[in-house]
C-alpha cells in the first residue's frame, strides 16, 4: 500500500525499526560468538571448513527455493514455495548410486538419467502450478512424498556406497587449499547470482514475484517465469545430489526430511536477515551456513544432540517473530 510522503513515520520510529531490523542477525552472531568462547576449537580453520562442507547441499537447494520464492512471491501458502527440491536431490542421488554401484553403469549415463528424472519432476511441478493453478505448497508437498516413494523403489530403502573418483573428489579434494565442494558451490552461487541479478531474465523473474500486476503491465508473463523457476529448482536438486553423495559417501535413506526442513529454515531465516525482509540468494546462503555453524557449534560445546533441535527451533521462532514485529513497526 503506497503511503503519501507527507504521512510517513518520523525518523524516531525508523531508528527503532532499524535496531529491530538488525536484531535477527545480531542474535545469531551473538550465539556464535558465545559458542566460540565456550568451545575450544570452534574458531578455527578446520571447523570453518567442516561447517561449510556440512552446509553445501543445503546451500545448493536453497538457491532453488529462493528462485521459486522470488518468482512466486513470499506468501508461503499461496505464493511460491517448492518443498520437492530435497526429494529431487535424494532421488537423483539414489539413481546415481544405484546405477553406478549396483549395475556398473558409466557415471555419465547415470548422471544423465538423474538429470532426466529431475527435469521431469520440475516440469510436472511447474505445469501443475501454472496450468492447473494448484497451490505450490500442496503440489510440491505431494510431489515430495511421491518422489520419496519412488526413491525407495530405486534404492530398495538401502544405503548404497559410492566410491567413484569424482564423488570422492567432491568429498576430499581441494582447490587452492579449500575443499572442492565448497569452491564449486561458491562458483554455483556466483553463477546463480549473476543469472538472477545481472540478466534481464533474472530481473524479470524478480519483478513477477514482487508484483504480479506490475509485471503484467510491463508485458511479462508471470506463468512463464514461475514454470521455469520450478524447473531451475529441480535442477538445483539435481546438483545437490552430488554433494549429498559426497557428504554421505553414497546415498542413504531418510536424508530428505532433514534436508527439507533445513532448506525451508535457511531460506526464510535468510529473509529475516535481509533488511528488506525478502528472500534473497545471499540471505539463503548465509542462513544455511549459520544454521550449520550453530549445529556444529553446539556439538563441539558438548550440548546433547537432542537439545540442538529445540534450541534451533526456538531461536528460529524468535528470529521470525522479530522479523514479523519489525514489519509491523514499519507499516
Amino acid at each position: 500500500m503506497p503511503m503519501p510522503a507527507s504521512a510517513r513515520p518520523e525518523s524516531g520510529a525508523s531508528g527503532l525499526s532499524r535496531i529491530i531490523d538488525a536484531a535477527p542477525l545480531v542474535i545469531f552472531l551473538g550465539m556464535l560468538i558465545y559458542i566460540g568462547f565456550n568451545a575450544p576449537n570452534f574458531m578455527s580453520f578446520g571447523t570453518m571448513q567442516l561447517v561449510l562442507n556440512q552446509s553445501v547441499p543445503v546451500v545448493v537447494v536453497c538457491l532453488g527455493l529462493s528462485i521459486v520464492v522470488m518468482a512466486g512471491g513470499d506468501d508461503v501458502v499461496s505464493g511460491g514455495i517448492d518443498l520437492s527440491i530435497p526429494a529431487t536431490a535424494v532421488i537423483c542421488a539414489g539413481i546415481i548410486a544405484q546405477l553406478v554401484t549396483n549395475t556398473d553403469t558409466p557415471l555419465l549415463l547415470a548422471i544423465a538419467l538423474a538429470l532426466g528424472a529431475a527435469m521431469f519432476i520440475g516440469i510436472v511441478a511447474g505445469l501443475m502450478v501454472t496450468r492447473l493453478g494448484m497451490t505450490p505448497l500442496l503440489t510440491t508437498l505431494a510431489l515430495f512424498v511421491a518422489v520419496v516413494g519412488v526413491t525407495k523403489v530405486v534404492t530398495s530403502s538401502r544405503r548404497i556406497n559410492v566410491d567413484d573418483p569424482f564423488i570422492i573428489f567432491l568429498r576430499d579434494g581441494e582447490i587452492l587449499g579449500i575443499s572442492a565442494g565448497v569452491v564449486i558451490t561458491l562458483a554455483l552461487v556466483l553463477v546463480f547470482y549473476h543469472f538472477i541479478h545481472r540478466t534481464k531474465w533474472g530481473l524479470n523473474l524478480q519483478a513477477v514475484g514482487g508484483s504480479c500486476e506490475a509485471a503484467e503491465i510491463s508485458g511479462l508473463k508471470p506463468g512463464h517465469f514461475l514454470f521455469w523457476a520450478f524447473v531451475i529448482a529441480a535442477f538445483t536438486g539435481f546438483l545437490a545430489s552430488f554433494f549429498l553423495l559426497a557428504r554421505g559417501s553414497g546415498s542413504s535413506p531418510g536424508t530428505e526430511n532433514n534436508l527439507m526442513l533445513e532448506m525451508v529454515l535457511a531460506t526464510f531465516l535468510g529473509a529475516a536477515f535481509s533488511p528488506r525482509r525478502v528472500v534473497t540468494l545471499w540471505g539463503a546462503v548465509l542462513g544455511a551456513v549459520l544454521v550449520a555453524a550453530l549445529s556444529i557449534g553446539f556439538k563441539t560445546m558438548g550440548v546433547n544432540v537432542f537439545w540442538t533441535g529445540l534450541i534451533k527451533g526456538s531461536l528460529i521462532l524468535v528470529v521470525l517473530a522479530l522479523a514479523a514485529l519489525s514489519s509491523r513497526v514499519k507499516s
Partner: protein
Amino acid sequence: MNQTLKSIIARFGFLIIIVAFVIFFSAVNPVFLGGDNLMNIVEGSAILLIVALGMTLIVATGGIDLSVGIALDFGAAFAIVAMKEYGFGWYGAALIGISGGAIVGLLNAALIVGLKVSPFLATLGTFFIGSSVQRIFTNGGGPISHRRMPQEFRDLAVGDVFGIPTEVVIAAVLVLAYFIVMERSIIGRRVHALGMQRSAARVAGLKVNKYLILCFVAASMTAAVGGLIASANIRMFTPLSGFSYLLDAIAAVFIGAALHPRGRPNIPGTVIAVLFLGVIANGLNLMGLNFNTKDALSGIILVSALALVVAQQKLRH
C-alpha cells in the same frame, strides 16, 4: 463429443476414479469387497480421519498446521506416561493426553495470533521444537511401552460398541461434531468468513483472534485424540510417529475442498477423501506388493488424484 466428455469429467471425475479403483482392486483380489475388509478400510482410516478433521478446520481459517503430528505424539505420550508413571485411570489419562495436544495448539496460537508469524512457519517451528522435546524426553527416540495399560484405555483401539470398533465410533462422533460446528453452526460461518477474507471479517466485527486461537487449539486436541487411539492400539508411545499423518491429512483436506462447489474445505469432502486414501492403501496392501513399491504407488496416485480433482474443479467453472 469433447464437450460432453468434459462435462462428465467435471461432474463425476473423482467419483469415476474411486469406482475404477474399487473395481480394479476387487478384480485383483475378491477379498477386497468383503464386509470384513470394508470395515478394515474404515478402521484403518479412523486416525487419519480424526487428524484430517482438525486440519480441515485450520485450512478453513486460511492457515495450515504442520504440527498436527506433534499434537498426536503429545496426546499419546502424555496419556501413556500418565498411566505408566503416575497410575492414572483411563479417562484421566485420556484427558491428560488431550491436554498435551492443547499445549501444542496453544503454542501455535501464541505464535500466530500473538507474534504474527505466518501459520506455515509458526507450525514448522512448533514441529521442530516438538520433535526435539520428544527426542530429549525419550533419549533419542526410543518408544515408551506400557503393556499393562487399563483395559478400558486399550479398548479405545480394540474394543467395540454394539459390534462397531470403538475407534470408528469415536471418529464418527467427531465427524458429526465437526460437521455440525463447521457446516451448520454460526461458529462455522464465522470461521469460513475469516478464512475467505480476513480483513472483511474483521471489519464485520468478528473476533478474528479469538476464533483463530480456538481453531488451532481444537485442531491439536483433535489430533491428540488420534494419538490416544494410536497408543492404545500398540500399547506404547512411539516418538515422532505422528509425522506420517501430516501429508495425507493435508491432501485429504485439499481433495475434499476441490470437491466442494465453492472450493471450500468441508467435512463431507474430507471424509470422502480420507476414505479414498484408505481404499488405495488397503487395495495396494491386498495386492501383496512390497513395501517400497506400495509407497511409491500411493505417492504417485496421491499426486494424480490431486491434479485430477483440481482439474475437475477448474472444468466446472
